[in-house]
């Protein structure tokens, strides 16, 4: 069954879209990532214009994150205080990100920027996570207790705050900076930024893995809602109909994913996410280096 999308101005198969939303929803619930890093490139492949894919992806992430975060609130695995601090940085970052996006769009280079961002960040983060998780698995097999990490320089900064749920007493500056950086990338890449924030929270801020997923979902809701509004008012590229079908699949998937996630060990969860991130990164990198079959590209206004 085909459905015509009013803003994207293309006709696509409803069940394909629904399945795509569902698959990304499962990932969202399992890993605490919005899934935007998968949904945006997959929408490109379906023939949705990139600008619409980026903006509508943000809208879809709002729904799947709300659905996911409610399940985490029930299990008390959301650090609200940390979430709000991250959010403060995130909103400023998102505004800057949309501005950069529109600037490069007018220069005709936005596609390249988005792809490069994907390759660089997915590559670094996927690689780091993969190695760390492998190490952790080998250590736990040997029977050694996992070492609690300490970050001297993070503890030396002013504006210290107590984050009870995370069991941390650290400066507010690193979380704000993490939120800001993720906000910029989120707006440019059309993603929630969970795949960057989750490792940053674990490795940079030293938050416990259980709290990380719920807290990042909480922050992602507001940053992607803000990004959606910015795209809707400056580019007119949010497609409600497209978002609705993706959301229906996504919210159902998110519930299934959350149930899965609680049954898996933290290390297994991380290694699975790392493999997925590396896979997407590899595919995108290949596209940048291989000679394209069509050297020309049309941009109509």
């Amino acid at each position: 069954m085909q459905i015509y999308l009013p803003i994207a101005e293309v006709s696509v198969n409803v069940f394909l879209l629904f399945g795509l939303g569902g698959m990304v929803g499962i990932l969202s619930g399992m890993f605490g990532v919005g899934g935007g890093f998968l949904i945006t490139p997959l929408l490109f492949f379906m023939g949705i214009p990139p600008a619409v894919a980026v903006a509508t992806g943000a809208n879809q992430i709002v729904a799947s994150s709300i659905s996911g975060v409610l399940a985490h609130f029930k299990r008390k695995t959301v650090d609200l205080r940390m979430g709000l601090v991250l959010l403060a940085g995130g909103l400023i970052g998102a505004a800057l990100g949309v501005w950069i996006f529109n600037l490069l769009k007018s220069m005709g280079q936005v596609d390249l920027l988005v792809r490069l961002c994907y390759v660089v960040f997915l590559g670094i983060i996927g690689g780091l996570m993969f190695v760390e998780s492998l190490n952790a698995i080998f250590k736990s097999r040997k029977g050694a207790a996992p070492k609690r990490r300490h970050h001297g320089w993070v503890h030396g900064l002013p504006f210290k705050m107590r984050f009870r749920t995370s069991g941390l007493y650290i400066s507010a500056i690193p979380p704000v900076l993490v939120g800001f950086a993720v906000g910029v990338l989120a707006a440019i890449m059309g993603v929630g930024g969970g795949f960057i924030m989750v490792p940053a929270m674990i490795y940079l801020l030293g938050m416990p893995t259980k709290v990380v997923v719920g807290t990042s979902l909480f922050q992602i809701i507001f940053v992607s809602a803000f990004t959606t509004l910015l795209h809707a008012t400056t580019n007119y590229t949010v497609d409600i109909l497209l978002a609705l079908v993706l959301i229906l699949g996504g919210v159902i998937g998110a519930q299934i994913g959350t149930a899965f996630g609680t049954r898996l060990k933290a290390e297994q969860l991380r290694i699975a996410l790392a493999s997925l991130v590396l896979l997407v990164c590899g595919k995108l990198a290949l596209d940048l280096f291989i000679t394209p079959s069509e050297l020309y590209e049309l941009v109509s206004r």
Partner: protein
Amino acid sequence: MRVLAALLLLLAALPARAEEVVLGLSQSNVSITTDFDGSDILIFGAVKREIAIQQDPPLQVIVTVEGPLEPVTVWRKARKLGIWVNAEAVEVDSAPGFYAVATSAPWNQSISAVEDLRHKVSIPRAIRSVGAPMDIMDSEAFTEALIRVRERQGLYKVEEESVDLRESTLFDTSISMPANISEGRYLTRVFLTRAGRVVAVHESEIQVGKVGLERWLFTLSRQMPLAYGLLSLAIAALAGWGASALFRAIRSA
């Protein structure tokens, strides 16, 4: 007698009036609804004439359907530091978003190059490109790429010998529009030719536009973008919360 002579003179002076097109369209409106998946337009008509059918040279029919004209930027990629980036751009001043040509005979028997140039019938003639930047020597490659990409998308097409012409009088053809066409006025032209020369032209219009929910959403997104954005967020929040509540109900039941 004098009246008859005058009439004959008038007929000789206006040869184009000798044969005229009477056109019918299966639809003059194409409505883009939620389940829109492209549309086939049946174009049919007759040649009206007051003189006997002239058999040699034979009559041929060309039908064109042209979407709204818009400027397009064509980018060419080049390898820089190992990766492929958009390197050079040519602005095509105006190109139709959709262009279909159907003929009753092979192309070179249908219309001469001069007449094609005058009436802008073939695809390359329908595209207007004033000039490329000084440093680009092969600007034709960009126009060719534009045509190639749009042909692959089903937006540009030449269908030779797809117009059915009977007794040099009745003709019909079907033009299929893909789902990714844009809104606007579509110009339909019918050319009658003999030996490559255009003897009559008829123009008509097809209106392509969104209706119902599609129209409402599109208008809202352009005229009240903030309200539209908030609406999309409200739907997202409701769906997210609804699914969560639903699953909780299922689990506790």
